[in-house]
């Protein structure tokens, strides 16, 4: 596994050599760095919402950094300001639909932040075409974050939960 120091060294090299792209893949690891050092970041490539349109759904680039390896569990990039000295897993939505934290409006949520969940435990429901799809955890761990509000629409690959893997 690559550690932060190694990443830092690679970033130094990228800067030093004025690279615009760097990609390294080896078993279980993939790193991809892209810099638009010279070119101004192009609107055509960056997926920035069009000035004329207004996205009611979160922009995919911003909302789903774990998009590269959906549909289920992926290693998230450590976020700025967050400690990342433990292994995190992100549960992403395998389908398009509406996210529900409980089986029925009146019922309590399947899970809450801080709870320990077991592999196979139902985390939420995604409703698609009137069907209720139960989304199960693929890991044992502690639930550290819920990204989506109850009743909110989710896209394919959108992240739902973060788990600290035990």
């Amino acid at each position, binding site marked *: 596994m690559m550690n932060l120091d190694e990443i830092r060294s690679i970033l130094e090299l990228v800067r030093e050599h004025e690279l615009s792209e760097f990609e390294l893949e080896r078993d279980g690891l993939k790193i991809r760095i892209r810099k638009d050092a010279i070119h101004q970041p192009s609107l055509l490539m960056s997926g920035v919402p069009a000035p004329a*349109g207004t996205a009611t759904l979160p922009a*995919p680039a911003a909302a789903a950094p774990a998009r590269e390896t959906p549909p289920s569990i992926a290693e998230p990039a450590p976020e700025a300001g967050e400690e990342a000295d433990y292994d995190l897993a992100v549960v992403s939505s395998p389908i398009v639909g509406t996210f529900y934290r409980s089986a029925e409006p009146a019922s309590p949520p399947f899970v809450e932040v801080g709870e320990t969940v077991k592999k196979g435990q139902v985390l939420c429901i995604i409703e698609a075409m009137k*069907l209720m799809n139960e989304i199960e955890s693929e890991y044992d761990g502690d639930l550290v974050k819920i990204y989506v509000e109850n009743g909110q629409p989710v896209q394919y690959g959108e992240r739902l939960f973060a788990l600290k893997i035990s």
Partner: protein
Amino acid sequence: MFKKILIANRGEIAMRIICACRELGIKTVAVYSEADENSLHVRFADEDVCIGPARSTESYLNVPAVISAAEITGADAIHPGYGFLSESAYLAEVCEACHIRFVGPDPGVIRLMGDKARARRAMKKAGVPVLPGSDGPIDNDEKAAKIAKDLGYPVIVKAVAGGGGRGMRIVQSANELSQALKTARREAEAAFGVGDVYLEKYVESPRHIEFQVIGDHHGAVVHLGERECSIQRRHQKLLEESPSVALTDKVRRRMGASVVDAAKAVQYTNAGTFEFLLDQAGNFYFLEANTRLQVEHPVTETVTGVDIVKEQIRVAAGERLSFRQGDVAFNGHAIECRINAEDPDTLVPSPGVIHVFSVPGGPGIRVDTAAHSDCTISPYYDSMIAKIIAHGRDRQEAIARMRRTLEMTVIEGIRTTIPLHLKILADPDFVSGKISTSFMNRFAADRPNRLAAAG
């Protein structure tokens, strides 16, 4: 009128539908696979929903994902474009059940026309000439031999569920028949999951002529003239034009009226295309009907001035057609070239990053594309990256405009079919209008050892 349309497609046709919606003041929802995250249709739709991974069976062909995307965004209609789910009676039915309007004909009409044998019978009943042939699937070789003998060789074996040349075999004599039936059934089974085949009279070097129709939900059906699509390679259209040099005004009116009658007979609504073979003696035979927008619709839009996509949306919303048959006038000549990301010689797909994309415009040139400099042509989908449509006062001017446009088009980073189009446009037979579906054979024949050498 609709408030929000979900576009269940990608690439240039998704852009085309966004254009139509913007002109009508309708909001749009793009759906996309992970491979298309940075596509223009995602950028320019008002909303966007990722519906699955790159593989189209899990994204663009995924009916539950498309319907869910429409539901979570509150879209009140779905435009399927062409390809993908555009001729899915199932999607049309689910839309009905979910109270989402499907921009296309009713599911029953899609199903009828999707079954080649039933479509043939329906057209025959409506008085449209069809190719002589077996009136339905053929299940035993003896019966086949008798029918083939009555039709007279050559005959063609075709898949009932067919398209794109698969499950199709030309049979020159009686002793080839049994083998041909076997192969065609196997191909059809593999390609469409249904092995049924039928027999038809085979027409040598015919022209492919198709009529564009559009109907509303108030019983009006209008035709927008014909397109000649004889320039095909492996049953894929390369270049289309309107009008066809093979049709006189009189024949156009007669054929058009016959198509309109047939469309009315099956209660056809929305846009559709009726394809015909025109044999060398001038006889027309119905081939099949496509219950969707066609790739080549721009040539018809160009000569008639009718925006077919906007008209589709209007009639789907229940409006009456905005024009009558008498209002349709044909102005000049239009040619479309499909620019594919393919090696023009080996025909091998050429996906990759387009570094430079510059198509000169000028008078009479329309460009439909979702490509641009620094875009990626994905290997997952259709290789068509742009359609260039040239309009001229006459065919000669349209050809000249197409030529200079292709000569001055710069697409770098991938290979395209532009050199092949330039060969076609320079061909004396093409220029004089002497074309048929065998036209492209000459370019293959020029290179007899092409595949061997490449292999």
